[in-house]
């Protein structure tokens, strides 16, 4: 049995809800508290009176700019451990913390060398989760030649100044609202793996997008 486990304390810092986590075979984002499988008897209370008091004070106080408090003042807090799987091989499915596959865009491992406009280019196919083969737990992509290739999660995601994170919709970023159904590629020029040398390219001939350009405000999503 090949279980993905995480240390208890690591689920608080480093890999808490909303953080990206590299499992041996998948890149995922840890689910929010509402998704944790807090079945009766799988967690215990953490007695930490001073921390609870502090949190209670903070969360029931109005914000610095007069925002309403995040919790009604009569709320009573308690701290719980995550759901702990006592016996991983029990007949009943043990409780756990759901984590979602993220990002949902992938790069094929197979490198294609093509000559465009007299220059050699190294490029790899950009595919979405939906494009992956449904069998084998969606880990492979069948290319146009019918051959199977492994995929790795793309190493770029979008983040905003407020700390939100999202997948980049590469088709939208390259094309804008214009519909297009051609294959897309991640092209790397030079040897530096630098944003300026990495391009998202589409077969339809639209201008390639260098990741340097992608840093421009408003480029990754419309407001």
């Amino acid at each position, binding site marked *: *049995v*090949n*279980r*993905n*486990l*995480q*240390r*208890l*304390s690591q*689920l608080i810092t480093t890999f808490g809800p909303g953080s990206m*986590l590299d*499992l*041996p*075979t*998948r890149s*995922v984002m*840890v*689910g929010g508290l509402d*998704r944790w*499988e807090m079945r009766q*008897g799988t967690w215990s209370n953490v*007695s*930490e009176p001073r921390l609870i008091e502090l949190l209670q004070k903070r969360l029931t106080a109005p914000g610095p700019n007069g925002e309403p408090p995040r919790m009604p003042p009569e709320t009573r807090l308690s701290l719980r451990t*995550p*759901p*702990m*799987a*006592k*016996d*991983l091989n029990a007949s009943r499915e*043990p*409780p*756990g*913390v*759901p*984590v*979602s*596959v*993220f990002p*949902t865009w992938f790069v094929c491992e197979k490198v294609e060398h093509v000559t465009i406009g007299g220059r050699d280019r190294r490029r790899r196919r950009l595919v979405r*989760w939906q494009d992956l083969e449904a*069998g*084998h*737990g*969606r*880990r492979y992509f069948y290319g146009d030649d019918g051959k199977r290739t492994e995929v790795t999660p793309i190493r770029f995601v979008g983040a905003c100044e407020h700390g939100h994170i999202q997948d980049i919709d590469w088709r939208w970023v390259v094309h804008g609202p214009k519909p297009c159904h051609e294959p897309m590629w991640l092209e790397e020029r030079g*040897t*530096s*793996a*630098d944003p*300026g040398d990495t391009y998202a390219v589409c077969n339809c001939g639209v201008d390639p997008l260098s990741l340097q350009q992608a840093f421009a405000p408003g480029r990754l999503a419309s407001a």
Partner: protein
Amino acid sequence: VTRVRKYRANPQRVKAPAPIKACPWCGTIFTPESFQCTPNSITPQNLEIRCTNGACDFTGNRALPILTVDEPIYRRLPAFLIATVDKFASLPWVGECGGFFGHVDRMEEGVGFYGAAEPGIGRKLFNGDQLLPPDLIIQDELHLISGPLGTVSGLYETAIDALSTRRINDNPIGPKIVASTATVRRAADQIRLLFDRKTTQIFPPPAVNRTDSFFAVTVPASKDPARLYMGVAAQGRGPKLVYLRALTALLAAAQSEYEGAGNVNPNPADPYMTALCYFNALRELGGARRIVEDEVRDRTARYGTERVRVDPPTRPFRDRRIREPLELTSRVSTDKVAEAKQALETSFVQRDQAVDVALATNMISVGLDISRLGLMLVQGQPKTAAEYIQTTSRVGRDHERCGLVVTVLNLHKPRDRTHYESFRQFHRTFYRAVEATSVTPWAARALDRALAAIVVALGRHLEPSLTPESAVTTLSEHDALRARIAEVIAARADGRVIGGTAALKQDIASLLEAWINTANELTATGAPFAYSRTGARSHLLQNPLDPGLANLSPDHRRFVAGRSMRDVEPNILLKVRDPWGGEIANAGDLE
């Protein structure tokens, strides 16, 4: 026994049953025949180590006076004992380990001593004497006993200190504690919390002259250089590429110097022929290993020929053939690591056995003492300055062969960038940047974790009649002892607990009461009850991760004691879901 058997069957692959490679008397390397179970492998009691050199004093009938198995150590109580702090955890669990702290009044010729754990065996020691508790405790690498590990071991130290304290003319005399470290800050605070010693004295003491303390003399770098630090960083380049280029250039340049020195022995360029590469994470090391195996090997083979200087027209590099890199990490077995250390000591006179590139994690940052090494490549600034100093001190240990440390920094990481920008200033004064460590044995969570263990340890070993496994039921007969346990712990905590001394004493009293209640409850129908599982099916102490823990009575559940200072955290199961929140079916990697 299985380990000895496995090692004998396959000495290359299986690690040796004892972490010792050669005879300490004559230096002959041990072979599988050196390790022998006595009296025989069907009823083994001891592992004896003999030298394979027929002329050595420790061969034939006379084994080396080294004990490596727990039971004979408890029996023979050697005068000199080497252990890790993890072994403290056996204090509540194993009655025999009380023997280290005295309470040993019987012995048998040719067998060993009998302590309070085994009443009624052996002859009385002459004059009805007892053995003395240890008087000297040496703690190496004090800076490692910090954080969570230091916190828990600080609590166990309470028990150890109380057990090793003798009373002479009604004055309590504790053992002398000598701790050694090269990188520590606020050591007095750490020692006060860890060992409860009010004063910390530095040895060698700082004398009249800052650079000459009589015991040690600081030689200026102009006269006797120790290490040269160099920072390498490149704007707009990935750290792997910088690492690749730096390593290639260093290896090829070392080869050029080595050849240029001609056929002299020792060759002055020999220290720089082995590149010791340090990594902050196994993840990075794994990637770098691929780079070394592939690109570095490929490039160094032709670097000297291709990289030619035009003006002046010289060839500063030579082609070099790189062999398989060596790994010093937790991913390889202890025995392989020992072999790797041996290989690192081989100079390039024996070219076939010498090492070109060694890849290491923080495993090397303490205790690797190979004077030959002169070249280190650090990939990325280590997380703490103490770690950085410790690690880079592995090269240039010989004053005749100074060290070269090349730190590859990633300009796109803010921390690395800061270090690069103030490289000179930081390195001139880096001892100043050593981080203070924290030890908080009296924090509420630390007490949750280890208070029961030390209460049991104190109770079991302070009173000899409570030491045997089955004596766990007799605590109620020792009123004075219960008061003494609370007194010992409260005196040590000195009011540093939430709620103060009164709350702590009450906590301890309720623990002792829970102990008595549990013992009464579980022996009410005549069932046997003991401290640990070796004594009886039902036992007081529980493993933290025991699944049966939840079924015990609330009183009994409090007696959780780890078998080590670490690893008491349960794991949480992560369930991978697809973007719509559903399970991923038929995924071989997730099932």
